[in-house]
């Protein structure tokens, strides 16, 4: 078991309920496949520095969790099939820093 961080960029034209659904979907998937969700962050709608597939902005969702390689494989499969996700990034860590939040604005996140 090791620690991971997963960042998802979703399309900008989704409603807030859809964004919540995506978050729920992936946090459930982590918990199902021998993983353990530690923290979720909602970075909100951010402007891209450069265009991605002709999109200019997107919703950022950040998940911190503990898991095995099987959870990572499962997530990668799902993300490929998901149409509402533009891009994602998974980073492995030895230690997770759960306190710092670089994208918290107005104390809005949960």
């Amino acid at each position: 078991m090791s620690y991971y961080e997963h960042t998802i960029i979703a399309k900008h034209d989704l409603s807030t309920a859809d964004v919540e659904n995506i978050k729920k979907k992936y946090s459930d998937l982590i918990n199902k496949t021998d993983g353990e969700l530690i923290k979720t962050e909602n970075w909100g709608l951010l402007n891209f520095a450069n265009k991605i597939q002709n999109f200019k902005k997107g919703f950022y969702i950040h998940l911190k969790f503990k898991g095995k390689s099987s959870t990572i494989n499962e997530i990668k499969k799902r993300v490929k099939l998901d149409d509402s996700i533009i891009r994602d990034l998974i980073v492995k860590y030895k230690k997770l820093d759960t306190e710092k939040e670089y994208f918290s604005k107005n104390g809005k996140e949960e």
Partner: protein
Amino acid sequence: MKSKKGKFNKKSQNPINKLSLFQKNDAKFMRKCPFSKKDAPEIDYKNVKLLKRYISENGKILPSRITNISQKKQRELSSSIKRARNLALI
């Protein structure tokens, strides 16, 4: 008397108070690595403010001979800059 002039001179020599122009510059102004100090900031791909200090106007990564970052930290920095680029944060 006991006087080891050669050794003593080298240590006390400052580049400012050189005696002549042709004297060799032994002590240089070496800045230390900004990430190897005590309570230095951690390099992370989410910390966009920090990463932006170490890229040029065109978005290229600055070489360590300009920023004086140690080899190990430069490797960390470049990988985290590439991660941030991939997420279109920089």
